[in-house]
């Protein structure tokens, strides 16, 4: 296996990018990620992106965003209709194969023009669930009630997770929902938005994007003072039909964490991309995170959830902590699908 590291990150997130197109969003981000390590597109051997035509409302919408990269002369490029964390996985595989030493990964989502909780119905199977158009909050509420009534989690614990996000996000300029003064009582006093879920249990949706540069071996050391070396990365999936799964658990997250070696040593930080407090709780359990590992210190996905980029943003957040010397070993996570159906875990270390 080649040693591959995250050497540069750039991200932006806000409540709504009303007057900004996806291309206009990504031009400065890609320039920042490349420029911070002195690279131009000529230095990049492989470019991979993640986005969703269902958000853009147009087939092959990612082709437009390639304008932000500079695709002439022709480049080696790929796209996943998934969170950018999976684009990063593809780039990591490409670098493992060899012949390429540097890769650019980016993803973005702009869900503000529509109602994300309804648009997400399009990811459901087209026969049993999709035609009923159950919205994402209502579906998550079914899971939440199962968890509460089975004793998998308490309302108090869910409120603690919500408060952790609200308080942590207070100093995070990229967060779109924060409250330094939020308390468990103030969260428990909120009226349910999808009974039993309260607004603070549900991620605040946002528009934004992230760009990440990966480099292999000595190239990474040349470009970055303290590269975030990817020590393990893995993604796994559970069955699609919610009825056949135990919705209080996420076995694929546990398996991905084990494959990525998450439990092999102490973790200084964990960044989880859970769109609901209930799912953040499930992940903490499945990933084996103990009280010594700060989780989503800057608010995480609950404080700002950019569809298609929330996972890549967690990788960027975690890598930044290695770059800055704030952490030596970090875990980042990305999720896709209904009820954490698919999970990706990436473990990074500094030298």
């Amino acid at each position, binding site marked *: 296996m080649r040693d591959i590291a995250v050497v540069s990150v750039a991200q932006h997130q806000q409540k709504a990018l009303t007057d900004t197109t996806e291309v206009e969003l990504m031009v400065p981000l890609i320039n920042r990620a490349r420029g911070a390590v002195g690279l131009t597109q000529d230095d990049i051997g492989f470019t991979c992106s993640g986005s969703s035509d269902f958000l853009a409302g147009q087939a092959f919408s990612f082709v437009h965003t390639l304008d932000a990269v500079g695709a002439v002369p022709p480049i080696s490029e790929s796209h996943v209709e998934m969170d950018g964390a999976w684009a990063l996985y593809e780039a990591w595989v490409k670098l493992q194969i060899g012949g390429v030493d540097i890769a650019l990964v980016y993803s973005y989502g702009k869900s503000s023009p529509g109602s994300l909780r309804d648009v997400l119905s399009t990811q459901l199977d087209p*026969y049993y669930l999709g035609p009923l*158009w159950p919205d994402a909050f209502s579906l998550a*509420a079914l899971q939440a009630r199962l968890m509460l009534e089975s004793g998998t989690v308490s309302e108090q614990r869910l409120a603690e997770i919500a408060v952790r996000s609200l308080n942590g996000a207070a100093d995070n300029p990229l967060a779109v929902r924060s409250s330094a003064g939020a308390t468990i009582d103030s969260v428990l006093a909120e009226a349910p938005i*999808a009974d039993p879920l309260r607004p603070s249990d549900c991620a605040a949706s946002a528009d934004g994007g992230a760009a990440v540069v990966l480099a292999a071996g000595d190239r990474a050391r040349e470009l970055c003072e303290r590269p975030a070396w990817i020590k393990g990365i893995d993604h796994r999936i559970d069955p699609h039909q919610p009825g056949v799964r135990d919705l209080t658990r996420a076995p694929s997250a546990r398996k991905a964490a084990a494959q990525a070696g998450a439990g092999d040593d102490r973790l200084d930080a964990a960044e989880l991309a859970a769109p609901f407090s209930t799912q953040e709780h499930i992940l903490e359990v499945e990933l084996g995170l103990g009280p010594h590992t700060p989780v989503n210190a800057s608010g995480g996905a609950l404080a700002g959830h950019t569809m298609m980029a929330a996972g890549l943003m967690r990788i960027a957040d975690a890598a930044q902590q290695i770059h800055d010397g704030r952490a030596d070993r970090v875990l980042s996570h990305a999720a896709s699908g209904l009820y954490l159906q698919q999970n990706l875990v990436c473990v990074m270390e500094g030298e």
Partner: protein
Amino acid sequence: MAERLRADLVLEYPFTRTTGPVIGAFLTGLREGIILGIRRPDGTVLCPPTEYDPETSEPLTELVEVGPQGELESWTWVDPPRSQSPWDQPHGLGLIRLDGADTPMIHGLLVDHPGELFSGMRVVAQWRSERGGHIADLEGFSPQESPGTGQ
């Protein structure tokens, strides 16, 4: 000056799909007013049925009739109703495990008020009079006993 050319653009996905021996049988059953599950090798029954075993990926073929009564495993209240859903009134959404099945399906709950819903309650399928082999042939599920008990 040249006349500007105009043409209508109809955005469509002009494809048809066959639903296959399992999903197709389930949807045909709905049209006939029955609900089908499918038996796994261990004897348990999945409803709605899948073509493959979710754990072993073995093909599944033994369809069995389940319901129309069942038990509510979890619920929430949807108000306002979502614009593209089959429901135009506030309604419940539930995980419903039908009698004879071991897994729950997600569908609507037809009550006037969330106070009428509780986990473990008995529910029964309500059918539309006009059915075409679609999941919305089921109008939803309503309380099997008189509502308001068990609160």
